């Protein structure tokens, strides 16, 4: 369990956008995709996904349409809108800057100061 990181507040939206950017997905597929691209390091509570999805649709970052899944079941598929793609780019850059800054800050050694 210790190999799995708690996701930080606010990062769930970013992860969903990233997962969907790789191709249209239904809700369960998004969970699997996040597990896959994070090397199973990030686990998301199944129920927590849906409020986020509905919120992103409302914000116009995702659009949803009903279709048929690989299991031959009806499922609602999500994909990025243009606004969603832009938001993903911005948030990714912001995250990278933060991560780099945090990384270098935490890597600082006494003699470097």
């Amino acid at each position, binding site marked *: 369990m210790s190999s799995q990181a708690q996701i930080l507040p606010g990062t769930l939206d970013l992860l969903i956008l990233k997962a969907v950017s790789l191709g249209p997905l239904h809700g369960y597929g998004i969970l699997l995709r996040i597990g896959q691209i994070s090397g199973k390091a990030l686990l998301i509570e*199944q129920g927590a996904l*849906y*409020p986020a999805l509905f*919120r992103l649709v*409302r914000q116009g970052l995702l659009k949803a349409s009903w279709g048929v899944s690989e299991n031959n079941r009806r499922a609602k598929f999500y994909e990025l809108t243009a606004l969603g793609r832009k938001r993903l780019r911005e948030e990714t850059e912001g995250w990278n800057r933060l991560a780099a800054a945090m990384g270098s800050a935490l890597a600082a050694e006494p003699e470097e100061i």
Partner: protein
Amino acid sequence: MKLLGYFHSVAARFFHRSQTEADMEEELRSHIQHRTDDLERSGLDRAEAERRARIEFGGRERIKEEVRESLGGSFIDILVQDVRYSLRVLRKTPGFTIVAVLTLALAIGANAVVFGILNGIVLRPLNLPEPRSLYGIERSDEDDPVQSYPDYVDLRDRNRSFDSLAACRITEAGVDTGENPSRVFLYEVSGNYFDALRVQPYLGRFFHASDEHGPNSAPYIVLGYAYWHTHFQDDRGVVGRVVQVNKHPFTVIGVAPLEFRGTLVFFTPDFYLPMINEEQVEGRNILNARGTEWIYLALGHLKAGVTPAQAVADLNSIGSYLERTYPKEHGKPIYSLSNPRLYGDSLGRSVQMFLTGLMLLAGLMLLAACANLGSLFAARAADRSREVALRLALGAKRARILRTLFTEAVLISLAGGAIGLWGSVALLRGLSVWQPVPRYPATVPVTPDANVYGVALILALVSGILFGLVPVRQVLRTDPYQIVKSGSTGALGRRITVRDLLLVVQIAICAVLVTSSMVAVRGLVRSLHSNFGFDPRNVTIVETDLSMAGYSGERVPEMQKRMLDAARTIPGVEAVGLIDWPPLISGAYGDDYIFRDQASDLSPSNAAATAYSFRMSPEYFQAAGTTLLAGRTFSWHDDKGAPRVAVVNLDFAVKIFGSAGNALGHFFKLHDGTRIQVVGIVESGKYKGLTDDSAPAMFVPILQSPTLWIKFGNPFEP
């Protein structure tokens, strides 16, 4: 953008609620099926896989709730939920609900009625263009707005503050339109009246200042809309028709618009005619009589940029001029400005004070109702402490519980407000068509408008919140653990303190209300049983105006004597008397300046008193049941050839002569120098209104009097 999206989402969810719900339900089911498929593939059988998938997924309702919240619209959802819940709770306690709603309906209804009257009479301006700059001229020194015509003309022509100063007077006349002659109430107005008020005719034209060329030069009539509607059946060909007013021909030149109902509240005239023709209506020329004050009100719009204070200064400088120029007729008039529609301040101020007082009492009543309901609610919240505790224990937020309680309170207050408003609207509508004095076309224009509805709504909401607030502390202090365990509330002492306080407030307010209504009722009873100076029992009043039939001069008393004789022959009639203005009937009497016999300076400032004066036939006192204290009453020999005599009341005798004994046989003087001998003294009475202090009054033999007062004996009693 975000806000727009929010509203869009709220609206969408509100209108497509079931669709969204179904959508969400299906998506969650699809999720669980996919998970089940995965688990089944890993080797579990289908049933077990589905069970596991459901467990992993967690509470579906909770997630749906979170989704709903993330979608916005939760406020409305919660509101709908709360309203449903409150309705259910209230239905369970119908006794409480009905009492609470009725209490509020009465309190809010009373407030709405009083506010409706205040609004209709005091707050709502005259239905005229730019009512804010319209002012009436008030005589502060005489406490009424009455003017003489020459004074009005001076004010009109010399002031620099008014755009145009108009004048009006209410009077009555006999009108013959070719059918049955009938009595009408009309305004005599200055030629510039309609122009000064910036009103346009509905039909035909209005008269103007340019139509006036000296006495009786403008025999024109402008009909009021209502009179045109009822007496001319909306006949557009009425313009140009000639009608007889007191036997003088007048031409109808136009019709006033429906919304123009004159400039005095309570009193909408049948038609308007130029004041310059007053002699044909009043039967005497008083256009040049500076001492005769007969114009009810002078009014006009202030010029742009002139403040009321500047206007008052301007008017008072004219007042000084009038005093200097006409010292015989004038004290120094002191002018001020007033709300024109309430007959100046003399009536306006008392109406306003009365209504404001009434409004305060109604407000207190509502407050008492709120205190009452507040303690009811507190008691109820205490009874429901277990329910509250249970809900808290199950994880409900305190804020949410308070919201529910508030929803209940506001629901009750809205229901009460609605019922109260419904009742008050019915009452106000009734009041508006009610004619309090059958003799006069007086109405109380209090038709409810948006203001009344608004105030009732605000009162309902405010009172709902007020008494809803009472149990808040109680809920906030609830300790679910303690209550669920022990089955009672912990903070017993506290709660009783709050409710005791409310009880004290309630009792105090009720005491004030009961006391004030007792005082009012006692006052009324006392004035109804006080001594009027005449006996109103078994008296019938007949009213005639001979000038309407074209009688004037010497022919009037002659005709009146014949009428009295004729009335006396009617079976059952005990006594017949005649007086020009029966006391307490019209309320508008001439005041005469009274001077002591030795006075040589007969200017108003030197007067010993002012007295109501009545003209009467010899038998009046007998017919009216007024007690003669000393001396004699008149006979028919007290005519023009005989010395002037008067009967005075006790107040008059005491005020002018010091005592009744000194008065008898002695003389006093009128403004014009006439010496009059006191031949009799009668008891004092009420003349203008029931609440009057007693005042000097004198009675002189008829010279010309338009009123018959007949007393009938009751045929069923010996």
